[in-house]
């Protein structure tokens, strides 16, 4: 194998599994360490710079980071990254954070941008462009910003104050609000002479289920996201006593839990798939079951049953899922039919994009599924002035993906309006690699690996939670639990950096490594190297770190997969051929805004103030 090029920032970035898996590449270990040091405001700012909505995401994120977490490979469960983020948000010093918001130039740069839809994608674009002097007009049909974070995520999961605070951080930068204003025509926006337009209108159209009885029972059949929105905006405050939810995603979980809070007595969720493969996040399923709501898997909707023109029940075909060797699923009816009594039924079976308001003759090309053709890197449409992001770009995803889109679209808009190529001139990531050595056995990070299990996040009693749709059901970590959970982090961003020239091949590192991930061996092709390592190389997704040739002609090969980042290799190295170096990777934002190595500067500033 060729020697690993560690000067390529993507190599060490990939070692930080959580950050690599995060669409916005939030420096997770960095903020977890700060939480461990009880520096909650600092931890919040590291998050905020990267993902704009730490308090919101700390409650509602889909957590792509957690399945990727290294801890999950060596221990039973990964670090509770999402809830730690919430700890930072809940315990930050609001005044301190407010004081750290970017300065907004009073002298504008003369460029005007329209953002359509006030969801996470648009707000991120505003967050990145406002400090650069752009004038930003934000359009939304609702009275407040937040988009589907406000309309679709119930308050018992995401309290309004949390949402308001983080939306306001952005709006208070001086965004011009055009709320209660539904944009009905893209042409009319274009005609206003904006220099660039960003579309972040989400995926607003709920899927419907066309089975017998649908039309006749329509008064008592609700479409999931529309229904949640009606509840959120208080157009609706009750539902019948017996409610059936159709669908197995997170929207279904939100619908059933909301129904239970506004009058539903017998609420159940029906899913066509098996319980294990349903789309809802495991923790959302747990919370649903904890509130006494049954989830009925393998139920495929068959018919709405009416009596005297009113919905009284739904019937389901019981199905069985089977998988072939390629993992392809086939669903077969078993012949059994189940009837579930209901006064109301909620369809939560997915959502689609809809752009009836975009004229088709204004230069935006539409492709498959009637979706606009959007560049995957620049988020630019075929009309060079118009950019898309969030669910509006490539279909329904999640908040953190929308934020990632927003950052990238903001870069494109800034490049475009400065006459640079939106593809070639994109900024490189910010990186920093600094030794963490403090002494012979001392590092500037907590290198000890603790054995504690994943801490459970506290909830309020179910009866209390069900009494109102506005009481947050989850309390989250107390500070003691948060500290333990933060210490569970393996500090994957503290990299094992190897200096070939210093190595005397004494085997000290190989002998001490708890997971045997270091091998000194004659170089070979990757496949045969993996077969010959000291420990089984089971995870081919993880890279091998290969050195250049050593004096004996061998190379050092480190399998990144199981490294605990405990620093013992470096402690055992007599010549400091190994060093533990703290790596910070940040996605550069629009205007080449330097990334949050800020934290240390902030700390410095604070000390000055104190003095």
């Amino acid at each position, binding site marked *: 194998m060729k020697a690993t090029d560690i000067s390529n920032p993507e190599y060490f970035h990939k070692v930080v599994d959580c950050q690599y898996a995060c669409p916005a590449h939030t420096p997770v270990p960095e903020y977890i360490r700060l939480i461990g040091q009880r520096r909650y405001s600092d931890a919040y700012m590291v998050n905020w710079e990267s993902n704009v909505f730490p308090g919101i995401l700390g409650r509602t994120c889909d957590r792509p980071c957690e399945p990727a977490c290294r801890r999950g*490979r*060596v*221990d039973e469960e990964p670090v509770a990254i999402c809830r730690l983020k919430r700890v930072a948000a809940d315990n930050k010093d609001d005044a301190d954070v407010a004081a750290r918001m970017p300065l907004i130039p009073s002298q504008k740069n003369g460029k005007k941008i329209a953002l359509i839809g006030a969801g996470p994608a648009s707000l991120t674009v505003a967050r990145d462009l406002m400090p650069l002097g752009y004038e930003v007009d934000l359009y939304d049909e609702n009275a407040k910003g937040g988009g589907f974070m406000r309309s679709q995520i119930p308050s018992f999961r995401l309290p309004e104050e949390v949402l308001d605070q983080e939306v306001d951080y952005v709006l208070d930068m001086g965004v011009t609000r055009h709320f209660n204003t539904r944009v009905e025509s893209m042409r009319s926006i274009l005609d206003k002479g904006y220099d660039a337009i960003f579309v972040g209108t989400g995926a607003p159209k709920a899927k419907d289920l066309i089975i017998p009885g649908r039309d006749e029972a329509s008064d008592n059949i609700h479409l999931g996201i529309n229904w949640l929105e009606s509840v959120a905006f208080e157009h609706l405050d009750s539902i019948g006593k017996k409610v059936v939810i159709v669908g197995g995603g997170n929207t279904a979980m939100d619908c059933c839990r909301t129904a239970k809070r506004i009058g539903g007595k017998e609420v159940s969720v029906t899913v066509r798939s098996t319980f294990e493969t349903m789309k809802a996040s495991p923790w959302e399923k747990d919370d649903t079951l904890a509130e006494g709501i049954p989830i009925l898997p393998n139920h495929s909707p068959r018919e709405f049953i009416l009596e005297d023109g009113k919905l009284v029940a739904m019937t389901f075909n019981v199905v069985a899922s089977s998988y072939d060797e390629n993992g392809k699923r086939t669903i077969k009816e078993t012949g059994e039919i189940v009837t579930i009594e209901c006064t109301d039924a909620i369809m939560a079976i997915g959502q689609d994009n809809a752009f009836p308001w975009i004229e088709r003759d204004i230069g935006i090309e539409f492709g498959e599924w009637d979706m606009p053709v959007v560049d995957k890197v620049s988020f630019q449409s075929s009309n060079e002035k118009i950019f898309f992001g969030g669910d509006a770009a490539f279909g329904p995803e999640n908040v953190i993906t929308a934020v990632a889109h927003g950052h990238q679209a903001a870069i494109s808009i800034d490049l475009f309006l400065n006459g640079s190529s939106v593809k070639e001139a994109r900024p490189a990531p910010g990186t920093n690699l600094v030794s963490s050595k403090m002494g012979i*056995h*001392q590092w500037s990070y907590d*290198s*000890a*690996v603790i*054995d504690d299990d994943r801490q459970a996040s506290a909830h309020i009693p179910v009866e209390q939670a069900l009494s109102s749709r506005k009481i947050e059901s989850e309390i989250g970590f107390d500070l003691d639990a948060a500290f333990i959970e933060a210490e569970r982090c393996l500090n994957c961003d503290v990299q094992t950096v190897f200096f070939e020239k210093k190595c*005397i*091949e*004494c*085997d*000290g590192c*190989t*002998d*001490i490594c*708890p*997971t*045997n*991930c270091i091998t000194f061996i004659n170089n070979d092709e990757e496949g045969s190297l993996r077969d010959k390592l000291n*420990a*089984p190389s*089971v995870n081919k997704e993880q890279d091998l770190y290969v050195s250049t040739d050593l*004096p*004996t002609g061998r190379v050092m090969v480190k399998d990144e997969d*199981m490294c*605990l980042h*405990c*620093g*013992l290799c470096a*402690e*055992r*190295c*007599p*010549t400091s051929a190994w060093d533990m170096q703290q790596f910070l990777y940040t996605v550069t934002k629009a205007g080449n805004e330097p990334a949050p190595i800020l934290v240390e500067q902030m700390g410095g500033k604070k000390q000055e103030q104190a003095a």
Partner: protein
Amino acid sequence: MSFYKPSFRHPSAPSNELGLTTKAYEGGVSTLCAGCGHDSISAAMIQAVWGLNIEPHRVAKMSGIGCSSKSPNYFLGKAHGFNSVHGRMPSVTTGANVANRDLMYIGVSGDGDTASIGMGQFTHVIRRNLNMMYVVENNGCYGLTKGQDSATADEGSKNKKGRANPFEAIDLVALALDLGATFVARSFSGDKDQLVPLMKAAMSHKGFALIDVISPCVTFNNHAGSTKSYDHTREHVQAGAVLDFVPMAQEITLDQIKGSTQKVALHNGDSVRLSKLSDNYDPTDRHNAIRTLLDHKAQDKLMTGLIYIEPESENFHEMLNVSKTPLNELKQDVLCPSGAALKSINEGLR
């Protein structure tokens, strides 16, 4: 600050026939200098005992005084151990071995503990062919007292201050061969591929097995001019009879070793397979072994590998008809025969 090791291990770490991973064979975390060859020998020990499927509590680790003799603390934490007086490990091991021959005895000693203060004990334990593995962690200096030349330091080897050693070195391998040792090997701490099978073979040998392991002292004897440094050893090492230990249960099918091979059957049915130094090197020929060793020395080469083996030798227990049953398992009536037994002995002497 961490003189500790995380408790997590590789989740796919292989298990031996006892269902144990190497974790069960680890000891405390070493407090020797970072980069010490002794730690590599401890790691090889873990692999060898694990690979032989020996339960850790069936092993007794015996040592004297010195950096080397500290090292049994860093492997087989669940084994028995005796950290004895300086240079007196062989006597203590002899006593223990007489009391309980069921345990496997691993003696760990250094060049000072063996070739200086313990020389008398070393020679006599060889003569007695005591059933044990005797590992010398040989770094050519007294590391624990700041690196003075030891009795195994080569003549002309420079110390850290640059002064050349004026005295001739004691070659423990040559001495052992001369004294009639039945298993003599030399290895290098930086070559576990050779060291681990050597240890397995040594532990399977019934009788005294010496492994002289060159184990660089990274703090006091790893500089240019030293003949026991990592670099010098690597440059001068000549892998002698490269060794492959084949347990009884394993059929000899794989042939990774190139060149001609020789199989030497061990006492218990296991065998040692050798790929030879040259076609006429026979490790069961003591004269030839001594001659080849001296030839290598004359060419400034360090001969390593299995140098001599006498698979069917009479060991200490057989020579002295030592009790097969460990003393701690003997019942009182056997240990203290009745008056009648004494009477019958007395009668026999009349």
